[in-house]
């Protein structure tokens, strides 16, 4: 983990910094609530929490513009909240209810919002990387200047299709930012046990893709790197790699006892590197917010999260007919054909 570079008095407005605090806190409180609902049996199956990694998505969303796209793997709740999806719809999908983004048919790993240009929510490690490049391909083909944030982990970075995609993205100068969220563990395998060279951001070099390492526990550093990458892509210079060093506080999924690392290691990260605490300190020490201001935000967030949980509990299960819907799109293939 590189040392934190942000100055004590960062060049950011009180309003923006407070927004990042709020956005990160929403993700953390939402995820804690999701963990609790899982414990109560209201959420089933696989559930991968984003706690610890909040600065990555919040920093990059701060660098994105309306119309940009994003796609990620299955640790996706944070990405959805950060891009403006409704916490109620996300939580209700986690509980498998009608009010969920996929009407209960997707679950934790499979949610989408074409409105917010969030393209999932994918369960196969590495598969979302060419999919993200494909979204970028569409934007280039259509002649707009949108970029696609394609998130994946240090584990996925060892998948073959990632390099097939790097090659084509560079060859065709696709406006895609490959965001490697390096939380240092591919499920339970520490990076040094799975990855031959420690610096994943170097891996674009073979394809001529610039890359850099970013402190993912510092939302301002992430935002700055994101802005640089976005400018590169929008200028038509092709893909960009951001390896964002971050840390997941919880296990890989709910059933992971995390015995592959020490409790002290986790505690040290929480105590010394926590991204939310960092912004909290910046706000207080910089005189940009008072304790009372932050307490009010905490309460506001708690309220949003509790309401999302209430909604997710009260929303009915999908109607049984839903089993048979959305398998094939309704528009008949012959609709446009001349008779």
């Amino acid at each position, binding site marked *: 983990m590189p040392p934190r570079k942000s100055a004590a008095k960062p060049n950011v407005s009180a309003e923006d910094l407070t927004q990042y605090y709020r956005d990160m806190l929403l993700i953390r409180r939402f995820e*804690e609530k999701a*963990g609790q609902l*899982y*414990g*109560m049996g209201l959420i089933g*199956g696989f559930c991968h929490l984003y706690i610890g990694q909040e600065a990555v998505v919040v920093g990059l969303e701060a660098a994105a513009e309306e119309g940009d796209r994003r*796609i990620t793997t299955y640790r996706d709740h944070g990405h959805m909240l950060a891009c403006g999806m409704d916490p109620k719809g996300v939580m209700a999908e986690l509980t498998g209810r009608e009010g*969920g*983004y*996929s*009407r209960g*048919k*997707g679950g934790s790993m499979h*949610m*989408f*919002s*074409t409105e917010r240009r969030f*393209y*999932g*929510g*994918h*369960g*196969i490690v590495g*598969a979302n990387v*060419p*999919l*993200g*490049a*494909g*979204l*970028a*391909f*569409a934007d280039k*083909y*259509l002649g707009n200047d949108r970029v696609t944030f394609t998130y994946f982990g240090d584990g996925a970075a060892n998948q073959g299709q990632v390099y097939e*995609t790097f*090659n*084509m993205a560079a060859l065709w100068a696709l406006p895609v930012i490959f965001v490697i969220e390096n939380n240092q563990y591919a499920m339970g395998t520490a990076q040094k046990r799975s990855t031959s060279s420690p610096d994943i951001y170097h891996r674009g070099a073979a394809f001529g893709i610039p890359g850099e390492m970013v402190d993912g526990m510092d939302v301002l550093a992430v935002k700055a790197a994101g802005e640089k990458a976005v400018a590169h892509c929008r200028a038509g210079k092709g893909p960009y790699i951001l390896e964002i060093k971050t840390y997941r506080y*919880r*296990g890989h999924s*709910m*059933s*992971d*006892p995390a015995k592959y690392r020490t*409790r002290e290691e986790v505690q040290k990260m*929480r105590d010394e590197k926590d991204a939310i605490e960092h912004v909290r300190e910046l706000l207080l020490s910089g005189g940009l917010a008072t304790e009372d201001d932050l307490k009010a935000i905490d309460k506001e967030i708690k309220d949003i999260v509790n309401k999302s949980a209430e909604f997710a509990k009260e929303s009915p*299960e999908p109607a*049984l*007919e839903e*089993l048979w819907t*959305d*398998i*094939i*799109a*309704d*528009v008949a*293939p*012959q609709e*446009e*054909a001349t008779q």
Partner: protein
Amino acid sequence: MTTEILMPALSPTMEEGTLAKWLVKEGDSVKSGDILAEIETDKAVMEFEAVDEGVIGKILVAEGTEGVKVNTPIAVLLEEGENADDVASAASAPAPQTTEDKAAAPKSAPAQAKTPAAPQSDTSPDWPEGTELQKMTVREALNAAMAEEMRRDDTVFIMGEEVAEYQGAYKITQGLLDEFGPKRVIDTPITEHGFAGIGVGASWGGLRPIVEFMTWNFAMQAIDHIINSAAKTLYMSGGQMGSPIVFRGPNGAAARVGAQHSQDYAAWYAQVPGLRVVQPYSAACAKGLLKSAIRDPNPVVFLENEILYGRSFEVPKLDDFTIPFGKAKIWREGSDVTIVSFGIGMTYSLEAAEKLAEDGISAEVVDLRTLRPMDTDTVIRSVMKTNRCVTVEEGWPVASIGNHISAVLMQKAFDYLDAPVINCTGKDVPMPYAANLEKLALTSTTEVIDAVRQVTYR
């Protein structure tokens, strides 16, 4: 307000566990993220974290207790300033949510009809009577279908290995680069997995990609994107996002290309909900169905055949000729037996029918054309007339298309069958190289004739 801390479910299958160890004691202040206890599940010992802030008022379940049911209150959390005496008045745990009773399965799946009522089927001709026809190879028909759709819709593009400058490994894309340019006719590196994924992503981004696989054998590297990314997304997204993409290329055995280049994937893809699967035989079907495939809002697996590419058929001269999915074609009417096939299997079927006619056996030949959706109604109607059925395909025998047809007939036309259905298929072996063995591994006209004789007892 006091909050009950409940025994958590810590794995998808956990119903109860052992409270192995408390890491806090009564009176301790805790904040979100602090570890409260270690809990032993069916899989492992897990740490259990606090969600809310507060003071541990009372521990209700002692450490070492086994068999603690999920959702049992295990401790009480007090807000700052509250008294442990409040604990007594804490509400009891809510009953665990059960969903089983509500989620009763529908009484019968729509696909499983009970009575053998004669189904309706659309047997209308593919083009109006009197339409002018022209001879065209399957290759030319596929090429014309793509060119016409690319003229009609700017978002249609084709990508694949050697589709542009080389003009197509099998010349299906001949001339497209010249007409549409390199933006829409794109040579890819030899990376099926990667470019299939890019194609699916592009289909979500507002384009209508045609992804050519040099052969479907190579698409095994890309099958994850065809099934997991393309076929399942409409469902997983609750209908928000579909994948309007066509995956196409030659499928099945060519001639003497060995085991890794000679597999028929019809049955594999026909099994997948969310896909449309097409395997045309004639040039007219290839053209009409490929145009429908390119316009379809769903992912289409379009299985061609190298041997058929050079065969000529009559194709209607129409400005805009399409054929709907899920409509079989009766190539030859007959009364003694129904031969059901698709793709290259149709050559054996039609040849066999011709020879059988010389011996006075009248065979009806049904070309399924699309394997998903499959027009089993036309097959059932035909078998109700002929009372016998033989299926013909080049794929392997286990879990074949023929097996499925047999099952459908058994369920829906049992009383009409006068003989067991016979499935003529490829043999249950990898494709050999030697000419004589390869011939033996495929099905043949002779096998179809023998099968018909068996089911007609003649």
